[in-house]
């Protein structure tokens, strides 16, 4: 069985048609992980019992000739920021090194209800803070396309697992670009749905107004299948939207002729690597050949997105991470003489440098005397960024950009310069701030054979259009 081209439908039909079993498929993937993951580092934890229990359930349905559920027997991986009952979940951090959740993330539960086989938990930057997965407290992830390079972050493990055929599909999370950027660095599809499209219940919170769960897959069709499965109102997440879930898969094949695609000049300025530019411009040309109308647009506040993000996200993070105090779960520093000493020492030992940096920045931005100058100011600039998109979407149906200004950089290249690392998110953070959906789809390679990603941004709750454009491009390319 060729794992490289194995999609959701191919895996499921192979099991339905008794060409293989879910158990055999899970065994094949575990063998692949055992063989290749020591060089890559995508997985933090394997959940063999859970996987084989689900596989057996699917096999028993197939044996009776019953119709399998939508993801019946499909092996998937879950980013370690999503809780899985009974399976250790660390968020890439030592402060949760021994944490075994007593409940499941809704998105994971929905995948499993649809028959998916959870192989294990995927490596990520600590608390999803990072753009290279080098901030994982455990070990970094190596890009399967070039082991000396980063897979991107923070969902580096999720992207690498799909790229290296160690899962058919994975779930990642995106707060500033953490699904799309690693997808582009590893040459896979990464979809960030509209804010509120997918429940955040069970996603260990980083920035509550910016966090999203979404799929990383080999094909756009697979991303559409996963989205349909996990999207929809969840009473456990007050911010999950009461908006009906369309049949994204049925919408995929609709023609793109006549759709208006915006090209924003702010995303094609200096700082964009020339080879990335070439691949992305080639992709836009291809979309024009398919009948899309290319319309120049402007998103004038783009250059303010990173500073806005690093105030809003860190402020929210400083609040969300206050719960890690060694009292009820997670790491507790030994021999603390008082309660406050216990808080301070547990957090200092348990959190990595980047997490501490962001907590400090966020606390500072919210502190008395600075709240107006930083946090309130950033929230106002956020409004301006949202208005940029609202204006643009009056003229176009989707906006096409490079996903990242460069292809994958070398491990260690940016670890000493936090600001340089933050600037890697320059094309992705705007969508998180505005709450709009975005997809990254592979669109070529650099001279060094490193993948380049094309990003397509859409209107709120219009994943159908961006999936359609991405699918049309993928089929034509």
């Amino acid at each position, binding site marked *: 069985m060729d794992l490289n081209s194995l999609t959701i439908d191919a895996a499921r039909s192979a099991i339905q048609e008794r060409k293989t079993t879910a158990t055999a498929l899970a065994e094949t993937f575990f063998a692949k992980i055992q063989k290749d993951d020591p060089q890559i580092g995508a997985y933090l934890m394997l959940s063999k019992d859970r996987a084989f229990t689900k596989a057996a359930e699917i096999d028993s349905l197939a044996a009776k000739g019953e119709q399998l559920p939508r993801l019946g027997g499909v092996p998937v991986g879950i980013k370690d920021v999503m809780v899985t009952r009974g399976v250790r979940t660390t968020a890439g951090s030592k402060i949760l090194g021994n944490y*075994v959740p*007593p*409940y499941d993330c809704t998105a994971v539960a929905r995948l499993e209800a649809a028959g998916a086989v959870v192989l294990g938990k995927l490596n990520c930057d600590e608390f999803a803070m990072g753009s290279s997965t080098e901030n994982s407290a455990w070990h970094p992830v190596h890009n399967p396309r070039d082991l000396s390079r980063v897979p991107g972050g923070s969902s580096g493990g999720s992207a690498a697992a799909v790229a290296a055929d160690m899962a058919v599909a994975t779930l990642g999370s995106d707060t500033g670009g953490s699904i799309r950027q690693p997808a582009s660095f590893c040459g896979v599809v990464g979809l960030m749905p*509209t*804010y*509120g499209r997918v429940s955040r219940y069970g996603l260990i919170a980083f920035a509550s*107004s910016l966090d999203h769960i979404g799929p990383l897959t080999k094909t756009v069709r697979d991303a559409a299948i996963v989205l349909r499965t996990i999207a929809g*109102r969840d*009473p456990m997440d*007050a*911010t999950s*939207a*009461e*908006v009906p879930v369309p049949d994204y898969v049925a919408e995929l094949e609709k023609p793109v002729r006549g759709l208006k695609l915006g090209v924003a000049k702010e995303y094609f300025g200096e700082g964009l690597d020339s080879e990335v530019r070439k691949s992305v411009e080639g992709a836009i040309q291809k979309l024009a050949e398919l009948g899309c109308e290319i319309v120049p647009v402007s998103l004038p506040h783009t*250059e*303010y997105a*990173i*500073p*806005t993000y*690093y*105030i809003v996200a860190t402020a929210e993070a400083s609040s969300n991470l*206050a719960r890690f105090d*060694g*009292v*009820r*779960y*997670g*790491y*507790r520093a030994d021999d*603390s003489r*008082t*309660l*406050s*000493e216990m808080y*301070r020492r547990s957090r*200092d030992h348990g*959190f990595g440098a980047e997490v*501490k*940096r962001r*907590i*400090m*920045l966020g*606390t*500072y931005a919210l*502190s008395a005397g*600075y709240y107006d*100058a930083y946090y309130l*100011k*950033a*929230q*106002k*600039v*956020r*409004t*301006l960024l*949202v208005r940029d998109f609202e204006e643009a979407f009056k003229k176009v149906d989707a906006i096409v950009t490079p996903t990242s200004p460069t292809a994958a950089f070398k491990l260690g290249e940016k670890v000493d310069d*936090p*600001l340089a690392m933050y600037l890697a998110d320059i094309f992705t953070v705007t969508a998180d701030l505005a*709450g709009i959906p975005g997809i990254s789809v592979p669109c070529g390679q650099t001279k060094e054979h490193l993948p380049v990603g094309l990003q397509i941004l859409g209107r*709120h709750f219009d994943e159908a259009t961006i999936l359609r454009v991405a699918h049309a491009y993928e089929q034509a390319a």
Partner: protein
Amino acid sequence: MKVTEKKVAYVAALANLELTEGERTRMLRDLNSILDYVDRLNQLDTTDVPPMAQVSDRYGIDESKVGSARFAYASREDILEGLRKSLPHEVALQNAPDTDGTFFKVPKVIER
């Protein structure tokens, strides 16, 4: 705006982080570098711009409804276990670093 060592210590105390000497030095450097960069937000005139903390009260809502009626779908009946069953006591204690079987045990609280 320049951050001072004293400010770093103050913010660390607010955040319940006990930074080592080396961490405080690096933090001073990193915070100043980031805040310098973030300062460019002041280039923008946001006098009459309303702040946006959340996008979810702007998109995906029923605009024909007004005020809190827009979010009626997000509330539930105020009854015990109205949404789902609570975690059993022993399960809630399972990850506790120190417990007597009923409570989470912590070092004593002393006034600083």
